[in-house]
């Protein structure tokens, strides 16, 4: 289907999210939509998919102007969207989630739906069991489920909003194959991303948005430098890789075993030294979050021990609070849900985390502190901004700004998930500063480049199996990708490096 957007305008309050954007996407193509966080990509896509109504402008499908007032309208016209956070129902069975929203009689025909689901899944080689539950799926599999569901509803135009965020390399390869296949079948694909390499390797053309405006378009072969310039209006240098000289022992993990709901980790050994960065790689749900949570005292191991500091103080079975008192900080992936308190302002967050003494809050002092941190951490917001009003990148900056000055160990889940390149570079420069002061960092990421770029040593997780620590220099993206997918594990033990 030929999709045309003409002079789309959308304003939220004072912010002009989309300013007279026109875009023409022919069928059987993959249109990349690039831009940094807050450039207006998602707004434009939500307009096309009926989530928002534009202030002005029109949408044409195959040359005919259409009115789209709701997502239900959009899907009737054949437009389906995969949202950045999958809009599915985690506690439901896959088949129920699949059926939900399909028009029909009072009693859905489960058997027929199940058959059609299996047929569709088979066409794309998706291994999904309709009787399993949605919350047992990885983010990548939930995307597959959404793709199948939208196709089943008759979608001819598919919009993907940041689909490569939070999925592993093999899943990404699978996703890209699927998108190419869909395009080859005549579908119109819109691929929204802030990741240049994804757009470059996949799209048949790219449009770049900056601050709500369409600033340029490009065709393959893409010129990376030009795209970066269009996205940011300037060039961005990547910090050179520095290897810290590891110091004294910070954390000793001794043959630790942990049991999760669906998975078990057995006998992990790891020594983390001061100034070191350890990357935990693996597909979502392979055990890395479980392990990181246990390092913070949030999950209890069923065997083995955790010791902190040079004097090997045994912390096994202690609560998170006691870990925290010994200088361990934990930054969860769900920033707004677990890391920050929605509804409280930045100032109030600093008051909470600094533990300014006394019964009454010293407003002046607190505000001064907030102002200082906001400028040091370059947060786009005021002391009075409530945290949920900040963008993802600024929320992550706020989390960093909230950390106490003297820490021994920082545990981070997905430090840069969903952030643009500029924020990513900034976040890591701040984390590296901490390393230079002697803090050790253990982080989880599904971005293999990030793992290799920033860690000294890497632990690979696959379905609860944990590799010995591997030196990052000894790994390549391909090698790491294979390990994450469960291949090549036979040759591992020889390479084990522990120190």
């Amino acid at each position: 289907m030929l999709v045309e957007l003409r002079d789309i305008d959308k304003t939220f309050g004072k912010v002009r999210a989309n300013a007279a954007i026109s875009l023409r996407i022919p069928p059987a193509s993959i249109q990349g939509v690039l831009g940094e966080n807050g450039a207006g990509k998602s707004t434009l896509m939500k307009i096309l998919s009926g989530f928002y109504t534009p202030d002005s402008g029109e949408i044409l499908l195959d040359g005919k102007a259409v009115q789209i007032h709701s997502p239900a309208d959009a899907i009737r016209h054949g437009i389906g969207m995969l949202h950045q956070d999958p809009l599915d129902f985690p506690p439901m069975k896959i088949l129920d989630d699949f059926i939900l929203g399909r028009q029909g009689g009072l009693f859905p025909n489960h058997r027929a739906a199940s058959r059609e689901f299996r047929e569709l899944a088979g066409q794309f080689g998706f291994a999904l069991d309709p009787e399993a539950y949605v919350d047992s799926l990885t983010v990548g599999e939930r995307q597959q489920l959404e793709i199948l569901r939208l196709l089943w509803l008759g979608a001819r135009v598919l919009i993907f909003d940041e689909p490569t965020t939070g999925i592993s390399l093999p899943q990404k390869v699978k996703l890209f194959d699927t998108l190419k296949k869909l395009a080859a079948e005549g579908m119109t694909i819109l691929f929204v991303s802030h990741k240049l390499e994804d757009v470059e390797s996949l799209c048949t053309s790219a449009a770049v948005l900056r601050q709500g405006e369409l600033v340029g378009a490009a065709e393959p072969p893409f010129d990376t430098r030009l795209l970066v310039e269009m996205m940011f209006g300037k060039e961005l240098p990547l910090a050179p890789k520095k290897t810290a000289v590891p110091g004294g022992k910070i954390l000793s993990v001794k043959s630790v075993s942990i049991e999760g709901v669906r998975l078990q980790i057995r006998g992990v050994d790891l020594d983390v030294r001061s100034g070191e960065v350890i990357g935990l790689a693996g597909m979502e749900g392979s055990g890395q979050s479980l392990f990181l949570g246990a390092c913070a005292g949030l999950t209890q191991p069923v065997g083995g021990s955790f010791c902190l500091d040079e004097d090997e103080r045994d912390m096994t079975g202690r609560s998170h609070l006691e870990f925290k008192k010994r200088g361990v900080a934990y930054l969860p992936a769900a920033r707004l849900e677990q890391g920050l308190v929605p509804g409280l302002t930045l100032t109030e967050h600093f008051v909470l985390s600094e533990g300014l003494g006394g019964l009454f809050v010293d407003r002046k002092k607190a505000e001064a502190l907030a102002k200082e941190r906001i400028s040091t951490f370059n947060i786009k917001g005021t002391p009075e901004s409530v945290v949920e009003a900040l963008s993802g990148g600024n929320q992550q900056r706020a989390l960093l700004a909230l950390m106490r000055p003297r820490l021994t160990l920082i545990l981070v889940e997905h430090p840069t998930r969903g952030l643009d390149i500029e924020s990513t570079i900034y976040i890591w420069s701040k984390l590296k500063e901490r390393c230079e002061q002697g803090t050790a960092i253990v982080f989880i990421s599904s971005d293999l480049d990030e793992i290799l770029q920033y860690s000294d040593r890497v632990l690979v997780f696959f379905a609860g199996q944990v590799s010995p620590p591997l030196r990052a220099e000894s790994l390549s993206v391909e090698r790491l990708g294979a390990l994450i997918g469960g291949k090549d594990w036979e040759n591992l033990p020889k390479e084990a490096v522990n120190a």
Partner: protein
Amino acid sequence: MTENEVVRSLAGVLAAAGPVIFGVTGETISERAGIINLSMNGTILLSAMGGFAVSLSTHSLALGFLAGAGIGALVATVVAFSSITLKQSQVAVGFVLALLCRDLSYFLGNPIMGQMGPRVSLLPIPGLQHLPLLGPLLFTQDPMTYLSFILIFLAWFFIFRTRPGLMLRGIGEKPAAAYVRGANVGRLRYFYAALGGAVAGLAGPIYSLSVKAGWKGTISGLDGIGWIVLAITIFGGWSPFRAALGAYLFAFLQWLGLVLQPSLPGVPSQVLQVAPFPLMILTLLLVNIGQAEWVERTLARMPEPVRRDLGKLLRAMNVTPPAALGTPFEKD
């Protein structure tokens, strides 16, 4: 007690659980849609009084029940209006309504206090009533008790087996996802809140026209039932079968209090009357104890087989509420 007496008493327990089942099923429907109707205690009292009053003046049982359902739907609609349209706290509004409706029922019910009114009579099912054990237990009841049996299955079937039921679960779980799939979230929430309120509103007339026939104001003995209904809804994991189990347990405990009274002369009768309430709360605590951090901590230190089985049991008992329960839905 002879065997016969025990069976007859248990049949009484099933009948006494009837109104509680209507209450929890109504609340379950409403909460599945994401609306907490905290007014339950007031709703049951007001619909009990209202249903009895209507029945008394019209000499029609059907109109009495209809009035009860109407009152329930009306109170629920107030909760829905203030939360969906006015975006106010469901908990605050529901709580105030619980108190308001209770006092309103005592005040408005003054003129009909203690009067003799119509009463639902037993309707033994021909043929089945003479079955050994099951006959007197299940098939010698009044129509509303039969309806309470059917309601359990009907509600379960609707929620888990039909297309609208699927959407009902959707709007309570993740309204944004339901909206994307074509649901008018606001309108559906109004509908299910009112429907749940109507079902729960039937609990009142079942008391005043059957289980505890008549209206006796503050000594009707209905005050507090609504709060237990809310607790059982949680214990029931928002599933009609489990909720029914909770309702029967509660009715059984109440009956036990009465039976034990003569054999425990040292214990004040008030203690036995009130005992079912803390016992229900205790059950609730036990059911959801698996979520507590110290339990997880203790469990982690236990030997393997114990840990696995105990963990499995705790997880099976554990229930998670509809994710969007009590939260308003906004598109942006």
